[in-house]
């Protein structure tokens, strides 16, 4: 098991956001983390990345308990994060964004640029001059350059034009086919479910359902996803 999250409870100051979340991601697996807005998806990701550490419960990644680690240490173990909202470093070029935090491994500049050719065309351009879709590609590329064992994508296609969204989904499919372990939060279930190996639904800070996408009934969707 690459990632195992067991009964984590996370707080923002005195406010409890997670009340017991369980999920696991196996090597090469794509797990979809689902739920309506405000149900704890991003907080779960923040807990896994040690940005908002859980007060109770355990997160074991690649055989190591993440308790006590700082976020950069968790990242060095192999957890790559593409945060919500196309977070690039605006005053750096595309190339600088990619290489500054790169770590050795299968993903290098050439490979990332072959996944997203637009980034290669705009290598010397400042990140804040890119379109929203290109910035998202850059955010994914930057995470890949750290050669993560597990890549976490938080709303990677949100707010993008349909054409760009298709490009991002095509890239996610290529990553999965290449054996990359993925934990994906996204509202586009029509794209996400066909490639997911497992789904976890969160409701009010708890994981309420875990199973294969094929077992996700219409009732469950109505009840927890509001679709």
């Amino acid at each position, binding site marked *: 098991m690459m990632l195992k999250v067991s009964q984590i409870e996370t707080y923002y100051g005195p406010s409890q956001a997670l009340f017991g979340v369980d999920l696991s991601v196996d090597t090469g697996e794509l797990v979809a983390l689902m739920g309506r807005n405000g149900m704890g998806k991003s907080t779960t990701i923040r807990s896994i*990345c040690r*940005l908002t550490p859980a007060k109770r419960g355990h997160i074991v990644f690649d055989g190591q308990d993440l308790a006590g680690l*700082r*976020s*950069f240490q968790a*990242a*060095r173990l192999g957890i*790559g*994060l593409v*945060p919500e909202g196309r*977070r690039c*470093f*605006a*005053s*750096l*070029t595309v190339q*600088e*964004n990619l*290489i*500054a*935090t*790169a*770590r050795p491994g299968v993903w290098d500049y050439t490979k990332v640029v072959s996944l997203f050719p637009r980034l290669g065309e705009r290598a*010397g351009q*400042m990140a804040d001059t890119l379109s929203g879709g290109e910035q998202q590609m850059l955010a994914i590329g*930057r*995470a890949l350059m*750290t050669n993560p064992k597990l890549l976490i994508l938080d709303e990677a296609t949100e707010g993008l034009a349909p054409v760009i969204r298709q490009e991002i989904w095509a890239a996610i499919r290529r990553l999965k086919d290449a054996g990359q372990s993925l934990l994906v939060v996204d509202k586009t279930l029509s794209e996400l479910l066909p490639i997911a190996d497992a789904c976890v639904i969160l409701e009010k800070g708890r994981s309420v359902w875990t199973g294969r996408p094929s077992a996700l009934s219409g009732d469950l969707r109505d009840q927890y996803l509001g679709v």
Partner: protein
Amino acid sequence: MRKLTRESWINSSLVLLLALAPLCASLLDEPYYVNLASRVVIIAMAAVGLNLALGFGGLISFGHAAFFGLGGYVAGVAAYHAFDGSYFIGVIPGSDQMPVIWLVAVLVAGLAATFIGVISLRTQGVYFIMITLAFAQMIYYFAISFPTYGGEDGLSIYVRNSLFSLDTSDPLIFFGICFFSLMLSIFVTRRIMGSRFGAALTMARLNDIRLATSGVEPFPIRLTTFVLSAMITSGAGALFADLNGFVSPSMLSWHHSGELMVIVILGGVGRLFGPVAGAVVFVLLETFIGGFTQHWQFFLGLILLSVVLFANGGLIGLLAGRPRHD
């Protein structure tokens, strides 16, 4: 051939002006103006050091006078012991050789900056400003209370330190040494900011949490930057002591830290040649308007206010626009 940006043209013109002005002054037999140019260049170099931390690293250090003064005191103390043949703390002989003095100055400032940085960089914002100020003031009061090296009265350097076989007492030659040192400090800053380390430093300034989620700890990057910045500023301090033939605790005072910050902001925070533009304006205002009125800082205040309100990229930003990569 790569097209030069407007900023490159402005920077080149600034360097050319700075190099030609003392040459003209020397031809006109005006050594005062050659020394004035040396002063501009040395203060610009100190500000280049601060700009690395403040402008590129976002580390608002209000204690860089400590490093400037440490560099000055290394030059002063080394020259003092070399002059009377005595030993520092009974074992270390003095030296009047600039390369030795620069090396020691840079090492001493580096050690001090490591100690100060390890403590102060655990804080941010106003706390960081206050801790760096507090450390600088501690060093200032230490210098005042140390009578062996002049205490409050300072320490004279009777003969300008030597560099190989050059006649360093010649104002133009000394200007050349200072100018070379400034260019070297700008070159080093440029190389740092053009490297992966520089990109990571920018990331740490823009969003250290995002940097950490990429597996890079921001603290060592900031500490290294702070130390390198202090080293550059201390080199300027050693030259400043040689220029004036004198070192005193005023070099360590918080006024001086404030002046360096003003120079960086005036010229352009995070612009490679911003400190040079800032130092030119600052020293010329101090010299020429200061010749008419002792309240010259009133005019400096007006200029600074205008720059902050209407040109947040400083003078370089005003002339060259938004920063861009070459």
